[in-house]
């Protein structure tokens, strides 16, 4: 039982230059935690100091924003694709 996490260009250097990482399935939050335990450098990019997903990090499951699903509790099926997409943002 595995799902594929698509890694955005800006995080690839932190996961050994891979564009996809395969991890064991579960809920979205668990799957992202597995990614982080395998590649600890990713943690700061995804989560804030309180351990919440950063506001500007969008996570999609098979193309659907997890905010429209069950958030990090969204259950994944074998073969699902999780995409991490940082929102483009800036200050003034």
């Amino acid at each position, binding site marked *: 039982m595995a799902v594929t996490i698509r890694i955005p260009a*800006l995080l690839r250097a932190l996961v050994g230059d891979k564009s996809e990482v395969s991890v064991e399935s579960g809920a979205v939050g668990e799957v992202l935690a597995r990614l982080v335990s395998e590649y600890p450098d990713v943690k700061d990019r995804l989560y804030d100091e309180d351990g919440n997903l950063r506001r500007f990090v969008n996570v999609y499951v098979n193309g659907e924003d997890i905010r429209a699903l069950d958030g990090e509790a969204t259950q994944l099926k074998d073969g699902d694709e999780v995409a991490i997409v940082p929102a*483009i943002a800036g*200050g*003034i």
Partner: protein
Amino acid sequence: MLDAMFAASLQAAPAEACGLLGGRDGVATSHYPVPNVAPEPTERFVMDPAGQREAFTAMERRGEELVAIYHSHPSTGASPSKADLLSAHYLDAFYLIVGLRQGRPYLRAFRIHPRTRAAVEVRWLAVRPR
């Protein structure tokens, strides 16, 4: 395309406008305006996730790559702010900033160094109509 970015920036003022330019080989040929969903849109910009995604999907369908990311500075001049530099993620793209000087738009273009986060101004830019 320059006109489209300028028009979007004027229309959004006093809020910041933002969007993407797609194309090939560093030459931008398509303009994708994206809504700014920042809670304080006069002070910052955050691209609407769905709009950003649609733009990337459209680029992929057209065989384009991301050439540039733009946003406007309605009142502070077209230099990148510290927050702009720190939150810049797509460093292969040009960072364009539209400034408004007494209501008249102008453009400056930058590359952001991936490690030092220093902005280097790009003096020459190919923007060609589709």
